[in-house]
């Protein structure tokens, strides 16, 4: 091991993450504190959170805790407010005219909604991967280097290393290492989405929000991204929105079920899928309505 661990320790944005990006999950689990319980384990907390688009009440009294270094899945029928909630977590809704919120939403105990909160810094800390892959029309390298360059001044060798490791973390390195300088638009859809994940990772966020990251992809790309999510879990608090029940069951530790703007049920994924407390959750996860 080289300078990596000590450097990680000094990174204020990532205090609780383990030192190696590629630690196996089992290693991480043995090193990590026990899941559930202690308040410092909660990364994002919503309490009686309401969201509006103009007059439309899109989110109603959401109370929810998202644990650190776990995958949380949001499920629910279309239009129930999953994306809306996700977009509040890094304030992407700020650019939508008429969008407003009330209640509490905190990251590491700090208010997310405050007017004085620096959204640029927040978004550096809370990355987002979108439904449709949206690489910039730049080279693969420049796509990954874009975020880091915004925030810090790198020596070029460091930047090369950062790009390489981000691409490795997104399981894309081997496929693109020979064409880093060619346009990202030439990649396949699945590769583009992994590039977007690499791009989000490269700024060193604490939280990764993923809004239906696999919905535009074929089964193979989906499988590789699901595997990736499980690997990234060791490092990042991940929230993923999905319409695919099997996917939620496969990748997530916790699942939250939304319905018409309200949070119906939230708990361990196994629990939600095998033994839901609420009738509507049961109907939804078993495919009786959708």
């Amino acid at each position, binding site marked *: *091991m*080289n*300078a*990596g*661990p000590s*450097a*990680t320790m*000094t*990174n204020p*944005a*990532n205090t609780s*993450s383990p*030192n*190696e*990006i*590629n630690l*196996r*999950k089992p290693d991480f689990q043995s090193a990590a504190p026990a899941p559930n319980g202690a308040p410092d384990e909660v990364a994002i907390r919503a309490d009686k959170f309401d969201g509006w688009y103009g007059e439309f009440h899109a989110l109603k009294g959401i109370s929810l805790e998202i644990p650190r270094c776990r995958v949380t899945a949001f499920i629910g029928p279309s239009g129930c407010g999953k994306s809306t909630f996700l977009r509040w977590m890094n304030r992407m809704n700020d650019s939508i005219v008429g969008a407003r919120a009330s209640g509490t939403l905190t990251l590491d105990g700090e208010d997310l909604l405050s007017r004085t909160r*620096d959204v*640029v*810094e927040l978004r550096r800390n809370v990355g987002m991967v979108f439904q449709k892959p949206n690489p910039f029309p730049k080279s693969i390298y420049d796509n990954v280097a874009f975020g*880091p360059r*915004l*925030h*810090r*001044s*790198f*020596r070029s060798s*460091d930047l090369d*290393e*950062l790009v*390489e*490791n*981000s691409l*490795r*973390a997104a*399981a894309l390195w*081997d496929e693109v290492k020979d064409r880093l300088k060619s346009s990202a638009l030439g990649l396949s859809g699945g590769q583009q989405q992994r590039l977007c994940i690499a791009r989000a*990772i*490269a*700024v*060193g966020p604490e939280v990764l929000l993923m809004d239906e990251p696999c919905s535009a992809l074929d089964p193979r790309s989906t499988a*590789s991204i699901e*595997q*990736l999510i*499980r*690997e990234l879990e060791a*490092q990042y608090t991940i929230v993923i929105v999905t319409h695919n029940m099997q996917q939620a069951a496969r990748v997530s530790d916790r699942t939250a079920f939304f319905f018409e703007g309200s949070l119906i049920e939230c708990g361990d994924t196994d629990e939600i899928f095998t033994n839901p407390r609420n009738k509507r959750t049961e109907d939804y996860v078993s495919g009786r309505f959708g």
Partner: protein
Amino acid sequence: MMAGLPATARARRSPAAIAASAPANSQAGRRAADRSFLALCLGITSLTVVILAVLLITIWNDGHGRLSWDFLTNFASRKPAEAGVKASLWGSIWVCAICALSALPIGVGTAIYLEEFSRRSRLTSFIKLNIANLAGVPSIVYGILGLTAFARLFGMASADSPITLGNPESFFYLQLPFGHGVLAGGLTLMLVVLPIIIVSSQEALRSVPRSLRTGSLALGATQWQTTWNITLPASIPMIMTGAILAMSRAIGEAAPVLVLGVPLFIRSTPTNLMSDFTVLPLQIFNWAGRPQAEFHELAAAAIIVLLAVLLTFNAIAVVLRHRLQRAAG
């Protein structure tokens, strides 16, 4: 689970670790850049508003004193006090009418051919390339084309003893070559605005959803029946908008008309297609080019008239478009 990653990856620094080792850019600096860029944007954008305001205000100040009914009904004169824009105003109206009547059918016809009838062929792509290039030709060069093709008919008939047809006093008088009459002027301006009309009509036709056409074709309508009954009506509002823009351009053009060699002083309004004429922009050029302040005032007054004509034109366009849009549903 780690199948996708080579073993060597384990010894690598995490992205977060590498990032932490590089000096952070100043947040305050980035925010300052953001704010000063917004200030720059606001400043420069207001500059354009200021330019427009200064332009309109100075012209109004210079010219409004000369505006009167007499100014509209008098011919140009060497004495500034008696000068008016009657000849050039009527000349502009005639020339623009001819320009519209010739450019619209040809331009829209070309667009229909290219969008609805043409197959992918070398000829089609050559025509398209040609139109793209025509749009960049300076208007004064079109003046040369008009002079040679219309005013002189390529020298096939002598300009001094033209072939005439009918009574010079009547509306139906014709002569070959056209000389520098309103017909030559209107056709020359047609050449100038044709590319504009073609391109905007093409865009209008392209905006009609493909499903409308396939719906009509599936009923057994021919290509032309589909175009005439379905595609063209649906795109008329956009075509008209483009046409009005083109006509605004035609009203303001001076260079191509100047090249035709129209007389500088005219004390009559056109009576037929061969009549001598001048146009408002040329009259403005003529007055603005003189050193005396009185003539500058006349130029400014004529500019007010020209801008008023343009404004009326655009107002008509808005109303027309509104009507047609409602009619089209």
